[in-house]
């Protein structure tokens, strides 16, 4: 093969990234000069010298957490206004708005990289790993993204790769990649498979049909803000409460999260684990014995968020004629958690298929797709879908779906537009992605301006064709039906589609975010939650309280009393109120389960 033709496969993960290639017909994962295959997706800016990437950056993270960026994938392609206050608060580094309303990471006054610039550093390191292993220059790649990434997030990923000197030959959905790795060895099988992909920061569930070398995705659903990181955070908060650590500084927070992650990983194998925090605060040292049972109670709300997503994808696959699920393939580091496997058995009655390496199957699939593109693999045919409906905003602020979700890609659909008034020369269309009926509840991808030739009202006839290509990216083409002339319409970035004053205000707010302001916002959020929770506890106790044991009821009442107490605190300690809410949430888990059971019993 010509050296220029080589294409590598890259899994750009939230917590780890990998690179692979097809070698003599088989996909392999490439290792760096030290033999490491997993590259932590982490970049750190030391106070002096060049930025560090990977393992070195992770180590620096405990010393300079505010200058160390991990899990930046969560912010790819998103506008600052799209971030929830809790997301900003829970991120150890500082996020600010750029002058177009985009998210930037504020390392210091001068250094404010965009998420794609940070990802580009990780991708450049992977490219170097490939060049080192293959002993040749590498310029082309297949890069994976969560299936549920929208157009903007995919575009940001492509831009990051370009910054790293890589031409993106295909953007591939992560669960689809994992299915490719699974399917390559099973070309003769006919089966309906579901890929449950639960990573560090994202969750996807895809249903595929395999037959005679055909691998066709029929439905996909996901959440791009749900992953193992959420469990680490919940566990770190629990440890802080149990150890009575009070308010944490950035270094303490970072250390605690690292220990929480270690504990979570250890408890996938062991039944108990000792969390050690030596010299945590000056001379203070702490130890905490954590059991798997306790971890599972903390992780349960996060794991349970994956269930409705699975049910939705299964229902949509069934509506499209897919048979019942024959195999449930697990990929992503978070599927190592025994609770995840147990819950999948409980919810769906399916024995999880563990044949795939949780960390490596996505990159192996990316390598296979790269092999398909450059002719190194031939025996498999892949067909994917678009995860989100594409539409335009219509009169009254409604979303008019043009391309429904789960349409096979590439796909196209058209609409005809005309001038509403005499002499109108153009019309702006707001392009949306999502499943909600109101336009404002969906992602705004941007605007396209449809040009008219002028003339009396209703005389113009411009056909606009929306296409989604194999990368899941949108292209918009306008055709003047009078002249037959086509031209590609530029999609103006959604982040730009905010008026100047709003951007200025946003930039100002994000840069000067005073602690008090942030505390007040978090307090308000927590207060609203308490005000919902306390009457809900009363109502639930009245409905099914008699089914609780005396101890369970006492725990709930004590936790509710602590919420009331924190709510009455004049100092508005947001952290204390959040912790009290979380404790009450946890204490009422059984109560919530009893209510749901009662609802189903009543229906039966």
């Amino acid at each position, binding site marked *: 093969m010509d050296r220029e033709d080589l294409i590598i496969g890259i899994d750009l993960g939230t917590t780890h990234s990998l690179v692979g290639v097809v070698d003599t017909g088989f996909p392999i994962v490439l290792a760096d000069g030290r033999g490491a295959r997993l590259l932590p997706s982490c970049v750190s800016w030391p106070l002096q010298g060049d930025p560090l990437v990977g393992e070195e950056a992770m180590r620096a993270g405990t010393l300079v957490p505010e200058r160390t960026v991990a899990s930046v994938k969560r912010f790819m392609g998103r506008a600052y206004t799209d971030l929830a206050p809790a997301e900003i608060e829970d991120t150890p580094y500082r996020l600010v708005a750029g002058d177009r309303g985009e998210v930037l990471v504020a390392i210091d006054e001068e250094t404010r990289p965009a998420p794609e610039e940070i990802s580009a550093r990780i991708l450049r390191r992977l490219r170097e790993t490939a060049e080192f292993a293959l002993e040749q220059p590498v310029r082309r790649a297949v890069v994976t993204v969560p299936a549920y990434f929208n157009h903007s997030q995919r575009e940001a990923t492509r831009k990051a790769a370009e910054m790293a000197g890589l031409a993106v030959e295909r953007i591939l959905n992560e669960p689809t990649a994992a299915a490719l790795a699974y399917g390559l060895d099973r070309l003769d099988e006919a089966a309906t498979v579901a890929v449950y992909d639960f990573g560090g920061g994202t969750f996807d569930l895809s249903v595929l049909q395999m037959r005679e070398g055909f691998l066709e995705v029929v439905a996909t659903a996901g959440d791009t803000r749900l992953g193992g990181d959420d469990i680490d955070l919940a566990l770190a908060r629990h440890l802080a409460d149990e150890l009575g650590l009070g308010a944490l500084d950035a270094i303490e927070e970072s250390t605690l999260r690292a220990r929480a992650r270690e504990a979570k990983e250890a408890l996938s194998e062991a039944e108990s684990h000792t969390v050690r925090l030596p010299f945590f605060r000056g001379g203070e040292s702490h130890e905490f014995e954590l059991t798997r049972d306790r971890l599972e109670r903390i992780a349960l709300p996060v794991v349970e968020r994956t269930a*409705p997503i699975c049910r939705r994808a299964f229902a949509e696959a069934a509506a499209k004629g897919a048979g019942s699920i024959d195999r449930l393939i697990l990929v992503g580091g978070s599927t190592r958690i025994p609770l995840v496997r147990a819950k999948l058995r409980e919810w769906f009655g399916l024995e999880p298929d563990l044949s795939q390496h949780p960390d490596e199957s996505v990159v192996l699939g990316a390598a296979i797709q790269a092999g398909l593109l450059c002719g190194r693999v031939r025996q498999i*045919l892949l067909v994917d879908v678009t995860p989100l409906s594409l539409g335009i905003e219509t009169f009254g602020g409604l979303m008019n779906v043009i391309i429904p979700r789960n349409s*096979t890609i*590439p796909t196209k659909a058209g609409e005809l537009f005309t001038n509403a008034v005499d002499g109108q020369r153009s019309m702006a269309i707001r392009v949306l992605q999502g499943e909600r009926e109101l336009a404002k509840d969906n992602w705004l991808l941007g605007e396209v301006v449809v040009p008219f030739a002028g003339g009396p009202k209703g005389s113009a006839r411009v056909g606009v064709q929306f296409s989604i290509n194999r990368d899941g990216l949108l292209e918009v083409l306008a055709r003047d039906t009078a002249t037959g002339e086509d031209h590609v319409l530029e999609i103006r970035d959604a982040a730009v589609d905010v008026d100047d004053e709003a951007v200025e205000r946003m930039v100002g707010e994000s840069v000067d975010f005073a602690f008090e302001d942030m505390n007040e916002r978090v307090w308000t959020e927590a207060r*609203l939650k308490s005000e919902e929770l306390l009457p809900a506890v009363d109502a639930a106790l009245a409905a099914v309280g008699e089914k609780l044991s005396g101890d369970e009821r006492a725990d709930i009442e004590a936790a509710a009393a602590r919420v009331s107490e924190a709510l009455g605190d004049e100092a508005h300690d947001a952290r204390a109120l959040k912790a009290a809410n979380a404790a009450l949430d946890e204490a009422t888990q059984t*109560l*919530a389960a009893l*209510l749901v059971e009662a609802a189903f019993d009543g229906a039966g």
Partner: protein
Amino acid sequence: MTDPFSTLGLPETLILEPGAVDAAWQKLAREEAGGEGANESVAAARNESRALLSDPVLRLERWLDLRDPTGGAGRAIDPALMDLFAKTGPVLAGTDALLARHGKASTALARALLAKEAVEAQLAVQALLQEIQALKSGFLDRYSEYETAGAAGDFSEARRALGQLKFLRRWEEQCRARLLALLET
């Protein structure tokens, strides 16, 4: 406008064997080189055609567009559909109100308090969906009659059926969307 029948190499008929559309689509995809398939535009037209012909209502619409391009759409609504319409509105509105309350609930307990209503709403939507599908099947079962009449140049019944089926299809989609949303509660 895409002619989905010729794009997939299928006869221009309303009555297609189950699996015929998928089989034709797969055959074309397989004939292309290297697993990568045709260029974007050809592949997009092929995928669009598959989606059109797999949906019996869209298939009827496209068949009429090709066979009877000057015919107008049937707009009259049968009394049975009017009765169904009177039931559909309240069920969907009630489900939307419940989903809105569920969306605002920020705690597991508050959401659990709505579980009973969610189960009831699910049963109501499912019952409605069954009624819609029964009416829809009534029209789909007559496709061979429309085809025969069409061969003699009479498209009036097919046009009338398309008008009713478009309503039924829309309500079916709305019910399915609510059921999916309820599954997520």
